[in-house]
């Protein structure tokens, strides 16, 4: 298992390098110019100098190399300095956003808590709802509950978040006035009243996201439970007189969780990646919204770094899912 994990980890380095190279070269084709916002009165040679100051004007391969150095060598130094108060990174050029002229990583670090808070809570809520639904609808297959559950998951599967979002806003913000339609990221929680407001503003985005995730997870859970309920060991467990609760909740559930846990692990990058559409609908100031504004503002270093972070997370959690599968299921051998 350890050799397998190490091999996969080493193999993921060229994969990530390749992905970053492809995305970087793709972005080089972008038609935008970071100097487009600079007033026309600024002479052309000054603009050229400003471009060079941003690292433009060199061959793409050199730019790519510099970006690699900045991300893999200088940014870790900055993190190290921040943690231990040393000064390794002093005077070294970090990845600079063209929009704000401040380091990209600083902005990302500012935005991550909002995304983690909203999308992460949605993920946890979705898991807590999806697993019981999946278990019970598999146990009572073709019952009314199962039919209703399948219908609801089908709807959750089919209704896109850019429809459920506005729909919830119309119902709960406009008609009923229960929740605010916009997520206020500057809101500080320090007592019970402000906690209630935080809860109110989180409910709608969390529900929109949780509906989608629940739909997927409970389908997996149901299918996996159904696979296991028909197995011989279940009949054996019942034959030796175990109660239904023990059979279902211990014997079947533990075996059915194996594929579901890997599916849950595979979904984790999406938490960090942020739900671009949901964040956009509820104006949550998260990573997804950051990517969107960076794209529209032609902020290529920001787009590049964010896309690369997403790719790293996806590769990493694919690896974790595979290893988890091997750990949980002793029948799987990777050697």
């Amino acid at each position: 298992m350890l050799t397998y994990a190490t091999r996969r980890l080493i193999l993921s380095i060229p994969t990530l390098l390749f992905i970053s190279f492809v995305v970087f070269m793709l972005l080089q084709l972008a038609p935008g110019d970071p100097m487009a916002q600079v007033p026309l009165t600024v002479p052309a040679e000054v603009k050229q100098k400003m471009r060079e100051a941003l690292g433009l004007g060199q061959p793409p391969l050199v730019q790519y190399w510099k970006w690699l150095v900045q991300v893999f060598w200088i940014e870790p130094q900055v993190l190290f300095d921040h943690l231990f108060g040393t000064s390794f990174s002093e005077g070294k050029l970090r990845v600079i956003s063209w929009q704000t002229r401040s380091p990209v990583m600083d902005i990302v670090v500012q935005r991550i808590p909002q995304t983690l808070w909203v999308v992460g809570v949605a993920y946890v809520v979705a898991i807590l709802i999806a697993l019981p639904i999946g278990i019970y609808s598999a146990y009572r297959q073709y019952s009314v509950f199962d039919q209703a559950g399948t219908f609801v998951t089908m709807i959750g599967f089919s209704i896109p978040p850019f429809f459920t979002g506005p729909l919830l806003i119309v119902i709960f913000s406009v008609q009923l006035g229960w929740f605010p339609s916009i997520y206020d990221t500057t809101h500080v929680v320090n007592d019970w009243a402000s906690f209630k407001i935080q809860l109110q503003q989180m409910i709608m985005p969390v529900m929109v996201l949780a509906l989608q995730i629940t739909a997927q997870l409970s389908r997996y859970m149901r299918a996996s439970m159904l696979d296991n309920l028909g197995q011989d060991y279940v009949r054996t467990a019942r034959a030796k007189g175990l109660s239904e609760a023990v059979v279902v909740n211990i014997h079947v559930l533990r075996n059915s969780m194996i594929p579901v846990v890997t599916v849950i692990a595979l979904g984790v990058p999406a938490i960090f990646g942020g739900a671009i559409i949901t964040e956009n609908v509820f104006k949550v100031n998260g990573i997804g919204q950051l990517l969107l504004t960076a794209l529209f503002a032609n902020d290529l270093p920001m787009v590049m770094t964010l896309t690369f972070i997403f790719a790293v997370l996806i590769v990493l959690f694919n690896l974790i899912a595979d290893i988890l599968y091997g750990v949980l299921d002793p029948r799987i051998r990777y050697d």
Partner: protein
Amino acid sequence: MTDSPQDDAIVAGTAGPAAIEALQDTEPSKPPRSRGRDVWDQFTKHKGAMFGLGFLAFITLAVLIGPYIWTVDPQKLDIRNKDMRPIYTALWDGDAKVSWAKPLGSDQLGRDNLAQMLAGGRASMAVGWAAMVLSLVIGTAIGVAAGYFKRLDGPLMRMTDLFLSLPILPLLLVAVTLFRQPLRANFGPEGGMFILIVTVIAITSWMPTARIVRGDVLAIKEREFVLAARSIGTQDGKIIRRHLLPNVLSPIMVSAALGLATAIITESALSFLGVGFPSDFPTWGKMLADAVQRMERFPERVMLPGIAISLTVLSVNYLGDGLRDALDPRIRGR
């Protein structure tokens, strides 16, 4: 098994000629059923799938034929008749601004909502179908090549893994914002966008199909009938076309249904985020995005395209579900 002749003979308890007669082979009373017939019978048992098929057929016909019956130009501005409510609003609100000339009302520029819905549906369905077909072609080609030719298996599957680890939606957004200008210049604003969106969706969604097809091809190519075909000197291309492709058709059809659903949602999401078709070209996603600002006063403008997208995707998903059940021989006949 109570109505078979053997059982009758046993129940009657008669020995002699009757039993021997019962043991004789009789002609089958009806011709054997074809596989297609079996699949169709199983498919019709799935109520959701039948609803899906019906609704998909309805919406396809509506967007294909509708614009010839309701011949209003969806882009025509009629500023005097702007902000009309749908005709059914008159049922509970007598003062509402309604007219039979605009059955679903009009938007803030006076464009007819019904005509826009039909035109928008046309765009969404066209993008969905085209992207689905393209992604199936790519996925099937790569899957068959990887499964059939051992040399290609490693590189092609590594490439599939690579594509699977790309962040899809960010990349879609990047690609659309980057290549919008050149393609618009070459193929016109609408044609260029259509090509771009279809290609981008197809390129980012072929991987599941390729994996499923590869798995099936790996299993089927070891079977005896493929060996027999090869032993009489059949070329690789012919084996693939005559023996492998028909046998992997069912997983391909199921992933086609799922692919259509994802393609429609992705196109609408791109339009919603404002990177889709040009602003005067209606699609369901863009109608929804435009209506969000005025949704307190005109909720129907959000509801109509939203319900259209959701119902279409729901019916396609149910269709896929039913297809999967119908094409699975283990479930069929139960």
